[in-house]
């Protein structure tokens, strides 16, 4: 056996999936565990979450998102369907319709990663006191970060649905 293109793609896919689990795993931790239970934590213990757990989780969360997108786009490029998928397989853009499901999944993933880096992370930095902000700005930032995080949780489900359908029903992997 030699290290051919199929094997190269397999390795990239492994990293794509590992980063994806890191990202979505922490996204679901925030939305199903941390945020709903903050109200049950006594005020004097809240800094353990806000100052220790959340910043550490956010580090792996945002770099997991970056890695997932990087390895995913790399894989799509190696597979030769990146343009067709990003144009949703539409004929008018020269795409192949079988790439529509993976394309929809990719766009959901790209929107989510954009939200992570350009909305959630900047607002969380203010909310958690990593950068200075007035109390009212902090509260507003915490709310915006929470709403975009919740939106990403919502989008993660159809994102996975479309990516899994592409691989299992239309043999686009």
């Amino acid at each position, binding site marked *: 056996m030699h290290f051919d293109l199929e094997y190269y793609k397999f390795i990239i896919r492994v990293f794509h999936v590992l980063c994806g689990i890191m990202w979505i795993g922490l996204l679901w931790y925030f939305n199903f565990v941390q945020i709903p239970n903050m109200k049950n934590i006594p005020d004097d213990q809240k800094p353990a979450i806000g100052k220790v757990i959340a910043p550490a989780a956010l580090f792996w969360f945002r770099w997991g998102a970056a890695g997932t997108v990087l390895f995913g786009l790399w894989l799509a490029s190696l597979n030769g369907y990146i343009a067709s998928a990003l144009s949703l397989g539409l004929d008018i853009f020269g795409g192949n*319709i*079988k790439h*529509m*499901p993976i394309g*929809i999944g990719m766009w959901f993933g790209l929107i989510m990663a954009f939200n992570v880096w350009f909305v959630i992370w900047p607002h969380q930095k203010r909310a958690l006191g990593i950068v200075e902000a007035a109390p009212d700005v902090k509260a507003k930032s915490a709310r915006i970060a929470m*709403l975009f995080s*919740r*939106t990403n949780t*919502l*989008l993660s*489900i*159809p994102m996975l*649905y*479309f990516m899994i*359908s592409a691989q299992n*029903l*239309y*043999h686009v992997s």
Partner: protein
Amino acid sequence: MKNPLESLPWTIVLGVVLTVILAIAVNLAGA
């Protein structure tokens, strides 16, 4: 052999319906 792409419209519609239901559920749960 059956063309696997025959199911594509259903898969897309089901995915869109899933997304819309989730969006409504999240909104009803309150922001």
